[in-house]
């Protein structure tokens, strides 16, 4: 937290500060008077052009992947049919706007189809990671003491296990599927939100209003659910945005290692790793469109996350 400029404080606040000398000032979650969270979030987008661009790109990509196939009909499930009725590795042209891949699948259609998987896994894995992380971090920080020590040591242990190694092991032990990938990626990504939320909780639980709830007989679960988590929501949302981007990248890496979703389904990573087999033959349409899709979505999510972070003044430690 940046050192606060005393000039910004009103005399009353300065007085309060002197009275509190000795006790650490509560930090984090600065007071804001700009209305509800949703209005703050809207404000972010109104101010930051990059965030608008990012949000528009993400929404368009979601529309393309889910509504697109309703207007642009292609066969994306039967390899046999694709091999029989269309030419393989054909360049972009009138019949195939983005060409076909080595199985004869239409690439534009495949980007939509694979995009569904990639986006679903990305958002769902980030959701799981965030939910587990928030609960874990809030409980750990709220109870403190031995509970906190044990729970955080468990986080440390999993942090020491490099993600890809754990992912490789888990996808080998259990057969790969879309649901498993969501669980596995989510399960390796919950550590960062857990740490962040624990940190927030540690500062929030000593606040007067939290103590007031406890004095009035509010149970721990109520304090965590109604008072601590809503106050840490800024940190949580910012991190969740980055989680989606990271999950899409991790999925792409797994696809390259041959551990993406099994055929006939596909995801952007698996498509890209198919395409790069032809990197030396000049079949650029099998690489750049899908690579562009990944990069666009990930960059956009990062723009959104950065803007949210700046606006909500959340200090995060990102890799």
């Amino acid at each position, binding site marked *: 937290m*940046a*050192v606060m400029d005393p000039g910004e404080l009103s005399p009353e606040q300065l007085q309060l500060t002197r009275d509190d000398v000795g006790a650490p000032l509560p930090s984090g979650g600065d007071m804001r008077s700009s209305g509800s969270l949703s209005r703050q979030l809207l404000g972010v987008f109104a101010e930051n052009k990059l965030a608008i661009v990012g949000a528009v790109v993400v929404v368009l990509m979601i529309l393309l992947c889910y509504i697109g196939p309703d207007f642009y009909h292609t066969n994306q499930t039967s390899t046999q049919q694709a091999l029989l009725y269309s030419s393989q590795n054909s360049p972009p042209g009138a019949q195939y706007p983005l060409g076909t891949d080595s199985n004869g699948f239409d690439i534009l259609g495949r980007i939509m189809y694979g995009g569904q998987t990639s986006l679903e896994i990305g958002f769902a894995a980030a959701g799981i990671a965030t939910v587990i992380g928030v609960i874990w971090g809030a409980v750990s920080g709220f109870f403190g003491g031995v509970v906190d020590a044990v729970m955080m*040591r*468990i986080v*440390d*242990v*999993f*942090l*020491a*296990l*490099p*993600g*890809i*190694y*754990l992912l*490789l*092991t*888990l*996808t*080998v*032990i*259990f057969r790969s599927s879309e649901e498993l990938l969501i669980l596995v990626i989510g399960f390796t990504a919950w550590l960062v939100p857990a740490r962040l939320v624990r940190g927030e909780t540690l500062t929030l639980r000593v606040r007067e209003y939290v103590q007031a709830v406890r004095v009035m007989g509010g149970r721990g679960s109520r304090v965590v659910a109604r008072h601590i988590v809503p106050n840490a929501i800024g940190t949580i949302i910012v991190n969740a945005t980055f989680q989606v*981007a990271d999950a899409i*990248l991790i999925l*792409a*890496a797994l696809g*390259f*290692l*041959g*551990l993406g979703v099994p055929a006939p389904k596909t995801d952007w*990573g698996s498509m*890209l*790793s198919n395409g*790069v087999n032809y*990197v*030396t033959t000049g079949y650029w349409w099998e*690489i750049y469109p899908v*690579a562009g899709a*990944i*990069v666009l979505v*990930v*960059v956009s999510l*990062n*723009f959104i996350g950065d803007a949210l972070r700046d606006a909500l003044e959340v200090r995060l*430690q*990102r*890799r």
Partner: protein
Amino acid sequence: MLAGVTLVTFVLSHVIPGGAARGALGARATPGQIASFNQINGYDLPLWDQLYRYLEGLVLHFNLGYSYKSNEPVKDLIFSRLPKTLVLLGLSTTLALIVAIPLGILQVVRRNTIVDYLLTAMSFLLYAMPDFLIGLLLILYLAVDVHLFSIAAPDASTVAGILADPRALVLPVLTLASTTVAAFSRYMRSSMMDVLTQDYIRTAQAKGASKSRVLYRHALRNGLISIVTLLGLSIPAIVSGAVVDETVFNYPGMGLLTYNAALNNDVPLLLGTTFVAAISVIVGSLVADVLYAVVDPRIRYAKR
């Protein structure tokens, strides 16, 4: 911490659906084959006895079991590959730091100019590209189109042999460094910006210190602190990145070993490499902690 990692790998080795024997021998193994496999590997003993034997072997002999595929001790397989991965990790992380720190400073000096925007855009782009794509594009443009570097990684069996073939080593190192550079330079920029708004910087400027003196003597050192923190935090990610990198370039390190183990369903080997990777992450974080004390004199460990 080490104990926790050990426990995780032990638990993982026991959650294979249908048992380890099915995983190793395939779905068509006869009950007799499974029984003898379980007996040889001690899987028929009570769980606590297995844990005890596992720990005893691990602590006394660093025994990580035998590879299902090649029947060699996992320990030997890993130790023949580990030094090569460490070379790759060390070189690329050093390169990343050497490039990222000046880039970050350059962006701060030229903040809100074209240079700054271009570099920011570049780091966003690099960060958003899957590692293997960067590697393959580098191969395409620098090894296939222009024959600057070799396509494949050095295939020498020793560390010295690998270092003796720098043309082949450049691309794997560059690939692994690129994502790290993207993250580090962005972080360096924001951390320097933070530092430059602080009071002591204004004091230094007021005293009449030159611009470069303020930047390098006063700001840089504090800016570096957060980079060291970031370095410690990103070690697991760098070690993970090495798996993809080694697969792209066929670099004979521990990452490729892990990848092949995954393809072969070689669970003991996978768990062994995971265990060793976790240890290297722990050691790496310790090194970052020591660096911490070097960069920031306010942090001192066990001095009194």
